[in-house]
């Protein structure tokens, strides 16, 4: 097991190198930070500062090596589009903000997706199944920004017209320390619901499919033939098996959630990683873009590893050696 983890971590290194090199190169060739200055009336000094910052006078591979050399030492450089703050600190800070949405969202999503998926599989072709299916298609087909804005209108505007109160905030992050528990919760609800709908929709479909496959399997029949109560059959024998394929999906979804939900963060003015990445891209802040990308890449790698390890826990047929 330990050897497996070590091997997996080692194999991700070339992966990360190739990935970061590709992103670095694409970023570097697609957006010349100097191009923006071309439309402005500026002195050579303004160019020189940017050239110095990003080593623009060097070829891209060399720039990448310089970046990488600093990055592996924990120095991801200053972020010009964020007042020169250290990229590393910025990414960590924003990652925490994103986590405030991602972690509760993840658990709520997992619980509801499993529940809906299991119920609709067990009660296949029932009214509930059709309802869950309809909900899933709505969630999958409704663009996030439409749903997010709709929630704002419903709870921020209409709710007030109907009931004279506004239960939730429609924008901005609020913390317990600064605003107290109540406001913290009121600010988190709508973005979490937005994340929830989209991901739950797809996860519950996966869960339903996995569960359907399992409950039609022979070992479920065996379990029933043993005289086990239905609940034990479904939850112990069925769900335990149906969760195995879901683990990968959870890992990916969690990594994506933690990597920042660009649309949701944009609509709810949430200071998370997604918006930070957008800022990096739009303002041609190479250090920042790379910082966020590396962080997200690391998240994906780590959670894939966790998923693989969880597989081993859930499915004894899998061995790591």
């Amino acid at each position, binding site marked *: 097991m330990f050897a497996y983890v070590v091997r997996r971590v080692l194999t991700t290194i070339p992966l990360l190198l190739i990935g970061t090199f590709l992103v670095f190169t694409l970023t570097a060739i697609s957006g010349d930070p100097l191009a923006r200055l071309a439309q402005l009336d500026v002195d050579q000094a303004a160019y020189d500062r940017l050239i110095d910052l990003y080593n623009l006078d060097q070829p891209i591979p060399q720039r990448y090596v310089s970046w990488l050399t600093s990055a592996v030492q924990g120095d991801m450089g200053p972020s010009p589009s964020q007042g020169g703050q250290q990229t590393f600190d910025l990414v960590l800070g924003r990652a925490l903000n994103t986590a405030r949405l991602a972690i509760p969202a993840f658990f709520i999503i997992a619980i509801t997706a499993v529940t809906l998926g299991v119920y609709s599989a067990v009660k296949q072709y029932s009214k509930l199944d059709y309802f869950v299916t309809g909900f899933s298609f709505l969630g999958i087909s409704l663009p996030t920004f439409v749903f997010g804005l709709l929630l704002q209108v419903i709870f921020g505007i209409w709710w007030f017209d109907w009931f004279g109160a506004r239960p939730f905030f429609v924008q901005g992050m609020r913390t317990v320390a600064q605003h107290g528990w109540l406001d913290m919760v009121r600010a988190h609800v709508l973005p979490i619901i937005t994340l929830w709908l989209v991901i739950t929709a797809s996860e519950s479909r996966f869960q339903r499919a996995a569960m359907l496959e399992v409950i039609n399997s022979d070992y479920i029949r065996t379990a029933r033939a043993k*005289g086990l109560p*239905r609940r*034990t059959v479904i939850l112990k024998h069925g769900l*335990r098996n149906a969760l*195995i394929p879901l683990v990968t999906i959870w890992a990916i979804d969690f990594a994506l959630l933690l990597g920042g939900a660009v649309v949701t963060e944009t609509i709810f003015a949430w200071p998370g990683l997604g918006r930070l990445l957008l800022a990096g891209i739009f303002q041609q802040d190479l250090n920042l873009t790379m910082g966020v990308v590396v962080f997200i890449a690391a998240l994906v790698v780590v959670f894939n590893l966790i998923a693989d390890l969880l597989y081993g826990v859930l499915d*004894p047929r899998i061995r790591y050696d």
Partner: protein
Amino acid sequence: MTSTTPLLDIRDLTVSFKTDDGLVRAVNGVDLQMFPGETLAVVGESGSGKSVSAMAVMGLLPSYTQIEGSVEFEGTDLLKLSTRAMRKLQGNEIAMIFQDPMTALNPVFTVGNQIIEGIRIHHPQISKQAARERTIELLALVGIPEPRQRVDNYPHEFSGGMRQRAMIALAIANEPKLLIADEPTTALDVTIQAQVLEVMRTAQEATGAAMMLITHDLGLVAGVADRVQVMYGGRVFEMSDTDTIFYRSRNPYTRGLMTSVPTAAARTDDRLSPIPGAPPSAINPPRGCVFRPRCQHAEDACYEEPPLLALDATGRHLSRCHFAEELPELGAQDELGRSA
């Protein structure tokens, strides 16, 4: 070997499924009796209704099936039992062994735990430790080597034959009165089949259970079953003691089944002669005798009127054929009835 009170008494069992194409009548008026301790072989091609009948006894048919008739087990009609009451019998009084041992065990629990679970659900007073000891004994009984170690193995660590042995151990764990084995050796390697049959017989002896052996393979039945019930198209076609079926079958379908079975004794230039045609549609069964389209002996009467299951003069041999009495005698020298 047989006593007079049946352990299991199935009367006029009819099982239908609703499908998009229409009502599928998988079992059509089946009668079946089993007596304590005996072994009854239920033989037929796929689609003959033999497995569905067994599932009806086990209470494992999906809720959307329509079941009519009665299935009395020790005098209680199982079809009228609540799910909860039925559960008390499942795996306890009546147990089942399934066809494919590769998929019949849950891959994520150890073999031992699955048997222990089966014991403790019916006997919660038995401690985990005691159940575990019992499980090890059972594994030993069914011939699993090193049962004390193997009890903690997962199914994937067992070979196919060992898994079926484990399934047998699971089935007999609560010393059932009725053991239903649904094609228990079909998925196994031929070399293993005989061993598993042997284990089943041992298990049956150890528990004194009656066993319903469901198979399509008449060859398997010979040394095992006391009685044979042949099914076709959801109906019983012939029923008698094993020797009678083998040597004095009075049904063209049974005879067809016999000629389609390979034997070690068969000469190399003998061709197997499968029954021509396909089993009847369960939605639109043929008019008259359901076997008529495939029957060599079919005459006009078979078209006009479905034959009834009728007793012969001995009073111990049932056959569903208009011409049961007129069929030629089987050659005595060829026990499998292959005419030269």
